[in-house]
């Protein structure tokens, strides 16, 4: 489904972040991109998700090479295919939970978006504002917002980075359960090797290059992994 071929990305002449990355991801897979800080994993996520354009290489979603897309085409592509969850949540502070999730839902005309709020266990807090929620709750709202637009691929950039262990496990558990229910593909960036045990495919990246790709038949749940 996603076929990344020899992708390169630099910031300035001397700062090559991605040095020819290639891999393939199947529909419905749970992929973790693992790497230390500065390894290029977040840049890889930005490029594969269409936030940024690579300097060279190809990124195929089925038959379409998004590396050649214009800004307008990329916006349309993200609208139809991609959901994002970030470490910092980026919720709209003047909108309550319901409206924050509606932001994603309205894009695809999803009228049943409140089911998603229910699924993440925040039905009772639908009218609260982000500043009235805990970090874990805010992250769950951002997951609901991403999934309310029914994406084919959910990109997560260190989603538990700002959370404590217990909350982090809960958030990962929600993500994993929702994937089983809706069948979307997950691409998660993390530096935490324990979280990688939840994934089916693990892509290790080091200094802008893939050092190892492995598959994990015994995927663990969020409450079975170490922390």
């Amino acid at each position, binding site marked *: 489904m996603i076929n990344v071929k020899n992708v390169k990305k630099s910031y300035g002449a001397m700062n090559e972040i991605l040095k020819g990355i290639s891999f393939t991801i199947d529909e419905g897979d749970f992929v973790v991109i693992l790497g230390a800080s500065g390894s290029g994993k977040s840049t890889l996520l930005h490029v594969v998700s269409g936030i940024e354009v690579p300097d060279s290489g190809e990124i195929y979603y089925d038959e379409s090479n998004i590396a050649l897309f214009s800004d307008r085409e990329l916006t349309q592509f993200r609208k139809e295919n991609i959901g994002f969850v970030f470490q910092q949540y*980026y919720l709209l502070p003047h909108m309550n939970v319901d409206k924050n999730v509606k932001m994603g839902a309205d894009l695809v005309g999803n009228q049943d978006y409140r089911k998603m709020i229910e699924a993440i266990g925040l039905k009772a807090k639908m009218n609260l504002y982000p*500043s009235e929620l805990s970090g874990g709750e805010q992250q769950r709202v951002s997951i609901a917002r991403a999934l309310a637009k029914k994406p084919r691929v959910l990109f997560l950039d260190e989603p538990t980075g700002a959370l404590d262990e217990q909350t982090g496990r809960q958030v990962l558990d929600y993500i994993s359960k929702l994937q089983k229910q809706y069948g979307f593909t997950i691409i998660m960036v993390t530096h935490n090797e324990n979280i990688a045990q939840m994934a089916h495919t693990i892509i290790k990246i080091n200094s802008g290059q893939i050092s190892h790709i492995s598959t994990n038949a015994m995927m663990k749940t969020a409450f079975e992994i170490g922390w």
Partner: protein
Amino acid sequence: MKDVMKLVGIMIISFCAVFVCHLFLNYYMDLIVLKDDILMGGMMIFYEAQLSTAKLISFISGGCLILTSVIMLFFYIKHYIDIHRKELGILKALGYSRLKIASHFWRFGFSVLIGCLLGYGGSFWLMPTFYATQNQDKILPDMTIHFHFLLFIFLVVLPTVLFSLLAIVYSYYKLRGSSLTLLKEAPITKAQSKKYNNNKDIPFLTELRQSTVKSKKTLAFFVIFAAFCFSSMTQMAMKMNELASEMMGVMMMVIGIILASTTLFLAITTVINGHLKTISMMRLTGYSQKECAKALLGGYRPMAYLGFVLGTIYQYGLIQMMLLVVFKDVAGIPQYHFDFVAMFISLFSFIVIYEIVMYVYSQKIKSLSIKAIMLE
């Protein structure tokens, strides 16, 4: 100092206020000296009318502009504290007192000083032409331009000191509360949540458009003010050929356009800068540049046209008042009727300029780097 340079809005408004006030007040004070030389009845009426005009224009223009500068100063300080709340919270946590931190806000008065000095100097430069135009029919005796030290104190020194003090007092008030309050993101209060409403049945983009306007009422005021300035000053300027002089017309037109564009620029830039993360998240999610621009800036369009209507009414009322009260005994003053042609020219120009500004900002949204904003 870098932040103080952003106070260009206050600087320009101070410049305009002092420029107009000094021009007319200096003229007023030089006219008073002539009082004993004015003997004839016709000359006396013209003289009195000149005095009244100078007083009226100084008070109305000066008053409006000073009020706007004060609102703008408060807005800038609040905005500064909002975007630097973490740094200010750290300073407080380290042990700096509220007064100590607030005392540094005197620098906000610096922009007023620059604006006032430029306005004061600029009006002196224009004064010979202005005096000659005001007395072009030679009804009054020849006038000499005098330097009035009192005006310098009242128009340059005093505003600078007062604005600096105001900045200290207001920032002192805004910095109340613990350092933790500043370090944390400001929570939404119950009153605010009522204000934002978050009606469940309206679409997200409509909701965003409404909450953007509601969350920054000062900016709505600035948009209204910008349109008000443009509408009133340009329409008055077009009538000045008949009622006063071509020079007054040009002066009004220039001041109107400068004030309007500065205020509009300030308001729209603040809206965009205050919503960078929202824009970024929307673009990321798949909302187009047009949808973002419409949601964030579209809510201000009705305000702009309201400002235009208010400006039109204001200029008509002001000219009528001047003709009925100030010039009632002066012979040869033409009758003033509402000028629809001037209004349509002004409205057309306003629509063109406003929509160009909106288009430019819409393009700015397009050029924002999503990644750069997310990494901030």
